[in-house]
């Protein structure tokens, strides 16, 4: 499909459908990101060419008195319905006119990939949500201090030494945690890990939780270590910011020290990668339209994002 330049707001609005991949900055709520994007879209739309005010029907009889001084004569010439003028009826596009929903939410301190469905893309966004794709996080921890809610902006509660920590010890712990999380999944399904049933279950693909209440971790890996910081890569479903922060805290306790999360960054949500996400200075109408097109091609390349067979993880009765 060839791309053409469009100057007409109505055409743009008609094509404002699909999934949008936004880079959420840390320290900003999802709600605020959404509001900022919607108001920017509306600003962009209202700056484009608008439709002309409606015409009055010719036989309309509400035209004033008919006296010579009245504006009747002007109106016969112009015959526009002034009540439809932009100054009288307000801007043509308001944030409320655009339907928009986040595929899944990110916490206040988390930055990274955030998916929004716009207008007709709402359907796609709910399908993606229902398929529960894996999200990949880079979580940076700072060793030596623990804070009240395990995040950087609260009070420090404990200090500890971390000289005895080596990358090997952290990776070892990460690997064992990953293994225990995987075993937990099969246990929740009610099958023993050493059976044929478990093998067949594993053949069908990734085990996913049936609802969005239980956080599930599929992989933990140490990817960077530089005192006093280390970074873990987490593959998870149904996680929350609080859960990951608590995970870091528990890991540190296990390693005989304390730590808190200094940064949580979502780098991938299903096939939607951070490299294609839209930064804050790109949150304007042209950027958003381009991003929608880009994500559309991702969706087309990976049809299983919208429609897939999956194995649900049911808690054992």
């Amino acid at each position, binding site marked *: 499909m060839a791309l053409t330049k469009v100057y007409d707001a109505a055409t743009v609005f008609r094509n404002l459908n699909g999934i949008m991949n936004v*880079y959420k*900055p*840390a*320290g900003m709520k999802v709600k605020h990101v959404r509001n900022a994007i919607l108001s920017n879209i509306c600003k962009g739309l209202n700056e484009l060419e608008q439709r002309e005010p409606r015409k*009055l029907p010719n036989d309309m*009889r*509400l*035209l*004033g*008195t*008919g*006296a010579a001084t*009245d*504006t009747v004569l002007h109106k016969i010439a112009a015959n526009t*319905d*002034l*009540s*439809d*003028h932009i*100054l*009288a*009826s*307000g*801007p043509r596009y308001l944030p409320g006119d655009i339907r928009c929903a986040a595929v899944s939410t990110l916490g206040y301190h988390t*930055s990274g990939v955030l998916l929004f469905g716009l207008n007709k893309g709402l359907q796609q966004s709910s399908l993606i949500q229902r398929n529960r794709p894996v999200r990949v996080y880079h979580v940076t921890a700072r060793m030596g201090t623990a804070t009240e809610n395990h995040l950087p902006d609260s009070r420090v509660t404990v200090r500890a030494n971390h000289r005895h920590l080596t990358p090997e010890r952290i990776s070892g712990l990460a690997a064992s945690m990953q293994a225990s999380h995987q075993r937990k999944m099969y246990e929740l399904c009610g099958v023993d890990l050493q059976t044929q049933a478990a093998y067949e279950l594993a053949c069908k693909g990734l085990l996913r939780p049936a609802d969005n209440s239980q956080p599930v971790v599929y992989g933990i890996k140490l990817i960077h270590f530089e005192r006093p910081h280390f970074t873990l890569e987490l593959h998870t479903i149904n996680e929350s910011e609080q859960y990951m922060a608590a995970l870091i805290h528990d890991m540190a306790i296990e390693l005989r020290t304390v730590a808190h999360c200094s*940064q949580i*960054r979502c780098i991938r949500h299903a096939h939607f990668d*951070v*490299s294609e*996400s839209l*930064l*804050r*200075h790109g949150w304007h109408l042209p950027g958003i339209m381009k991003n929608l097109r880009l994500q559309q091609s991702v969706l087309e390349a990976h049809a299983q994002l919208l429609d897939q067979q999956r194995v649900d993880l049911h808690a054992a009765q």
Partner: protein
Amino acid sequence: MLCTWVRNITRIRKITKCYQISEQIRHIRALKRVQSDVIVPLEQSDVAQHDKPTEKRLAEPNEKQNNAVALDFGIREAHVPTFNLAAHVNNSKTLQQLLSLGVNLHSIERRKGLGQFVLKLDFEENVKPYLTFLSDQGISADDFGKMITKNPLIFKEDLDDLQTRVDYMKSKRFSVEALQRIFTKNPYWLMYSTRRIDRRLGYFQKEFHLSGHDLRLLATKEPRLITFNMEHIRKSVFTLREEMGFSNKELQTLIVHTPRLMMIPPDDLVERFSYVHNDMGLSHAQIIQCPELLASREFRLRERHEFLKLLGRAQYDPQKDLYISPSEIVQGNNFYFVRNVAKSDLETFDLFLKTR
């Protein structure tokens, strides 16, 4: 309601048996519309009550003609509730004139009571004298729309009062250009009595020991500051003086250079200051040199400073090589910053932002 109305008509018809020729009816209807141009919603109900008995009698023989104009509610027009000013634009000459001035009726009606007020105005009587007054003050007609949109209540003020206020400003040796700027930038200024304006100008002069010239400069630069919430200003001044520790002399230059600082929420101001002072390591004297730093949002400062630090170019000491002026950091959009200040490219900057 319609049913009862029709029922009434039939009853009246039985009693009175009064028939009128359609010529007369049309005449009366026309008269009624003349009124509807001028009358206001409050009065409309009264008028409607007066007209009712005759209208009922008159409407009856004309029923066939009425069918032709299905949307013409006749006298009931007065009772149909309207939700915005747009509903009246086609019928009201005043609103049409305001529209042609560029007044945004939509944003006026969102504020409580203003829609009613604007509807009651008559262009020739209530609006025109004020417009001539404003143009006498040298305000161009292009700005009328914006001014009235912001403050339609100016039509409530007495013209003599307005003249007194302008004279007061002139007696304070504000130049004509300054007044023009003040009135266009802050349409609320003229609403304040001379005593109130005097008190506020006095406050700023005493608080910061400003000379007359500096005070005029301050008021012209940011006219909204003078009519701003005084409680807020007091808080900001406290923040600037006590929490950030600017001396009186420093504060004076800071205020005159960027009066807008006092209109920023104090919490944000402290956040920005602590980043600039503690993380970027700029002294008070350097901040005084470029107060725009404090007017820029914190995330913007943070992004840019950390990018410069990553490139090893965050060097704000003018005595050394590769000096980058702090005022350049907050200038322009990201593209300008990356190309001209950081001397890098936008892809690098994007990649950097995606690691945070």
